[in-house]
């Protein structure tokens, strides 16, 4: 009797063994390509093919807008593939949806490296997401290039020789906008509204390096999390209005910029808006605000908004790069929107092609990195300022121009391109000319 009862209370710790068995059986069922040997040659490169990969949010709260970037870059690769490829090699671009969750970034990046044997991780999006794979990619000697984030952390060539940034880092951007505010609105009261994460905080850091502290009458922020914009920005904008801010600098994503403009309009509050390039994409904003001002003044809410740009304004219809971009995207990116994000992806795709071109016929990781570090000036791209890659710097675009949005949504330059070649360095005027379109895009 006793035994029968005891045998009922089976040692539950058999959980350990059974779970191991479950895991083992599951793994045995799952096909794994990873067990195959890594090719001795340069991974991801054959005589006819180059495999590139990326992780980016295609769904979820972070996806709006950003989900246009990778497909736009891919459109450039499709165009190049259709026109003979780079040195005869066609580009395969593997896009993984990490939903802006570092856990998924780690998983997919390792998959790209170890199962798909990518040559390089091109245009991975986000600071926390890309930080989580930075050391992995460097340890495995996989280039992590054109990281889509304005963190200064991508430029650490000694520690992370395989990592290269892309867009101007947020502090540099903030400095240029801050300098403009100081010289043009130096006597006005200034307020900040920023996303409470590294993007916003770094931007504010840059602004504060130029704007005297006593001029800043109000600082408001919002959370970059799912619920962050759930209650709108009414309370923040009300607080800035109460503080009497006459100039409001925004370090916001486009949806938040639009919400701030909406809230201000509702409050009959009309400060001068100075908006970082990240959140000031006029086509996107006009699309969002058009519904609000229907039957009234069109995109008039954007009138007079000041922002910076390191790529040609999308509204510059005659810009040859923009015309090329629209032609390529129309053909190779079904259902594309012409806005700052697709332009960004296009520029990134062009730069990638240029770098592969410069790396030469004998493409290796070494020749690729060498092309970036020593031929940065030769990488033709739509940027208004050069990419400053060197052996000691991996920043990316080094500055921007400042533009004002007109009543009809065009952007007119109010400050010619400025550049900052080192993070703590002075702002200087960039006197170079925009790149012309290289030969392989003129076929």
């Amino acid at each position, binding site marked *: *009797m006793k*035994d*029968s009862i*005891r*045998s009922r209370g*089976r*040692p*539950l*710790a*058999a*959980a*350990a*063994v*059974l*779970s*191991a*068995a*479950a*895991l*083992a059986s*599951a*793994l045995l069922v*799952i096909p*794994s390509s*990873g*067990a195959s040997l890594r090719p001795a040659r340069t991974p991801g490169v054959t005589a006819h093919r180059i495999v590139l990969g990326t992780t980016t949010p*295609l*769904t*979820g709260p972070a996806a709006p807008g950003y*989900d246009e970037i990778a497909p736009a870059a891919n459109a450039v690769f499709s165009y190049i593939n259709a026109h003979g490829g780079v040195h005869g090699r066609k580009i395969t671009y593997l896009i993984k*949806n990490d939903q802006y*969750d*570092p*856990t998924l970034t*780690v*998983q*997919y990046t*390792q998959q790209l*490296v*170890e*199962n798909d044997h990518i040559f390089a991780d091109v245009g991975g999006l*986000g*600071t*926390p*997401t890309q*930080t*989580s794979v930075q*050391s992995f990619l460097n*340890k495995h000697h996989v280039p992590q290039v054109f990281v889509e984030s304005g*963190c200064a*952390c991508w430029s650490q060539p000694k520690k992370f020789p395989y990592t290269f940034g892309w867009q101007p880092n947020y502090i540099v951007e903030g400095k240029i906008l801050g300098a403009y505010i100081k010289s043009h609105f130096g006597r006005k009261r200034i307020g900040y509204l920023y996303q*409470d*994460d*590294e*993007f916003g905080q770094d931007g504010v850091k840059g602004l504060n390096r130029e704007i005297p502290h006593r001029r800043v009458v109000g600082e408001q922020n919002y959370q*970059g*999390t*799912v619920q962050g914009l759930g209650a709108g920005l009414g309370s923040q904008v009300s607080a800035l209005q109460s503080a009497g801010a006459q100039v409001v600098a925004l370090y916001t994503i486009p949806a938040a910029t639009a919400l701030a403009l909406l809230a201000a309009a509702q409050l009959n509050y009309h400060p001068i808006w100075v908006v970082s390039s990240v959140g000031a994409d006029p086509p996107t904003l006009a699309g969002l605000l058009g519904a609000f001002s229907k039957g009234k003044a069109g995109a008039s809410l954007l009138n007079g908004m000041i922002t910076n740009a390191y790529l040609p304004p999308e509204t510059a219809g005659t810009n040859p790069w923009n015309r090329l971009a629209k032609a390529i995207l129309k053909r190779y990116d*079904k*259902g594309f929107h012409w806005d700052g994000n697709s332009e960004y992806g296009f520029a990134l795709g062009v730069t990638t092609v240029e770098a592969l071109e410069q790396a030469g016929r004998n493409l290796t990781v070494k020749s690729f990195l060498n092309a970036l570090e020593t031929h940065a000036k030769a990488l033709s791209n739509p940027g208004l300022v050069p990419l400053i890659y060197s052996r000691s710097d991996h920043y990316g675009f080094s500055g921007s121009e400042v533009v004002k949005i007109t009543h009809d949504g065009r952007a007119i330059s109010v400050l010619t391109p400025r550049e900052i070649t080192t993070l703590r360095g002075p702002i200087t005027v960039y006197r170079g000319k925009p790149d012309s379109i290289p030969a392989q895009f003129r076929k």
Partner: protein
Amino acid sequence: MSLIEHRLPGAKSLERLRSQPLVWHLLLGVLAAAVLYLLTSSVSFYDNTIIAEIAWYAIAIAGLSVLTGGSGQISLGHGAFMAVGAYGAGLMMEHFRLPLVVPILVGIAAAALLGTVVGLPATRLRGPYLAGVTLALALAVQDLPTKFSSLFNGDSGIIVNQATPPGGVNPQRWLAWISLLAAILTMVVLANFMKSRFGRALKAVRDDDIAAQAAGLNPNRMRVLAFAVSAAAAGLAGGLEALWGGIVSPNSFSLFLSIQLLAGMVIGGAGTLIGAWWGALALVYVPQWTNSITSHLSSASTVTANLQNAVFGVLIIVIMMAAPSGIQGWLRAGYRRLRRRPSSLASALSPPLDLSSTSTPPERTSP
């Protein structure tokens, strides 16, 4: 009646062994470790990363399972406890050079402490009210790193120095070992706990508060204990995730994670430790599979991008309809059917585990 006793000649000594949980568990643990060593060395490095991920997911889900299956409380904020464990361990790893076990223990302790603090008001809350509070907790914990960004480095997160494995072992394999070892220990500890008088007390409190009190149990103490143990497991999972990802950032601990853990638990089978492994496998592999399937499709990019989550949603719905007690419950029912028909296969299968003898608590009378 005495089936086990007379089945095998050595059964008696086996039976004696089983009554000494410590020895028995150590033996099982050594066996499991051997199996897992073979497993981790026969698959690719990438698969080792996945094994490690499955292991910490399983730990977190098992902790949640002890809470929901054990004491009947629902947490929609277990991601918060993972976050606390991850930040606790991550900060230690960032600032001090300590043997790995210390930061992990700090993470566990921090999570258990928060679990106790949350568990106290939670003793008065039932069902959705508790879900509401834990949900709010998950949101709040996600925003704290930006509020105190000098300590937590805000949205960018803190970088964790991944320990260099000894003797030139591959780091991914090393992580898989650590995570699996932790997972096995956790399973043993949780199984012990649920099998002990505390587990019994938890079930008593879950099923009938009044009867439990009349029998001399303090339901509030049991609920707080369940929360603390459950949070400690989540804290361990968080610490391992920090080590695994090399970064601790609020983006890893979104509300979606908490919801995923709950879904994983119910898919696997609420209240069972084996079910936690099924849940973890589902959470890790379903996106992988759909991703590899969708990458071969050539439809518009918005469709392929969303297909992955759509399949996950469908899977959740289908499992809940086809196997209401989760995968483990379904397997167990299948096993029982097999056992009724005596066959050699049935006796070869080891009996499934049973944490909560009934996965369905009796319906509460509504007011």
